[in-house]
């Protein structure tokens, strides 16, 4: 019996306990909504001057660049980004109530699906968008693999 248990464990991934999934949803969904809103002009989030680890500066600003400098930080979009990643990782890396070999195969399929879709989108953007808009879009694209994986995996789980 013990031996059998070991075999089953080998076919599934090492993940966080199931309770982290609920915490993940509670962080992920609000920060995703607020993050998307911060891209629009609905709310005006103020920039705050803060000491940062490294400031690379912008081409036309005369700010001090280098390590441990003060700079204007778009604090809210930054915070939402951080929370999307934390919530997303908790969600994507926690077990289902019963994590078995089929659930693991769904995980693999979802990760693969989101990877292919993300890079297809990146490829199209490389071919079509130029200028500063390209960098703005790339910042958003960074979140895509994790966000797509989470939605695809949970869709496959719930689908009949």
């Amino acid at each position: 019996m013990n031996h059998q248990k070991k075999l089953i464990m080998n076919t599934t991934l090492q993940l966080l306990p199931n309770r982290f999934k609920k915490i993940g949803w509670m962080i992920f969904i609000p920060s995703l909504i607020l993050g998307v809103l911060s891209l629009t002009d609905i709310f005006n989030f103020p920039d705050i001057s803060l000491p940062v680890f490294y400031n690379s500066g912008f081409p036309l600003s005369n700010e001090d660049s280098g390590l441990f400098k003060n700079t204007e930080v778009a604090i809210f979009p930054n915070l939402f980004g951080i929370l999307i990643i934390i919530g997303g990782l908790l969600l994507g890396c926690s077990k289902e109530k019963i994590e078995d070999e089929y659930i693991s195969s769904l995980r693999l399929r979802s990760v693969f699906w989101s990877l292919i879709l993300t890079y297809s989108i990146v490829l199209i953007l490389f071919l079509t968008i130029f200028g500063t808009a390209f960098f703005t879009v790339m910042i958003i694209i960074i979140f895509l693999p994790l966000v797509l994986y989470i939605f695809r995996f949970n869709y496959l789980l719930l689908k009949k």
Partner: protein
Amino acid sequence: MKNTIKIERAVKNITQEDLAKIIGVSRQTINAMEAGKYVPSTVLALKIAKYFHKPVENIFQLEGND
């Protein structure tokens, strides 16, 4: 590969949920196997056969394109 899990389940008169609990897998796994969308590992196939008191070959059979 095809299987007769659904038939065996009907004979025993248990739901997918019941079978999943007994075997120790998720309900989705039983559902996917019955729909022919998932081929179980050897361990899982043996456990299912053991529960129905039948040889594995009676429950899981190869198909033409396997």
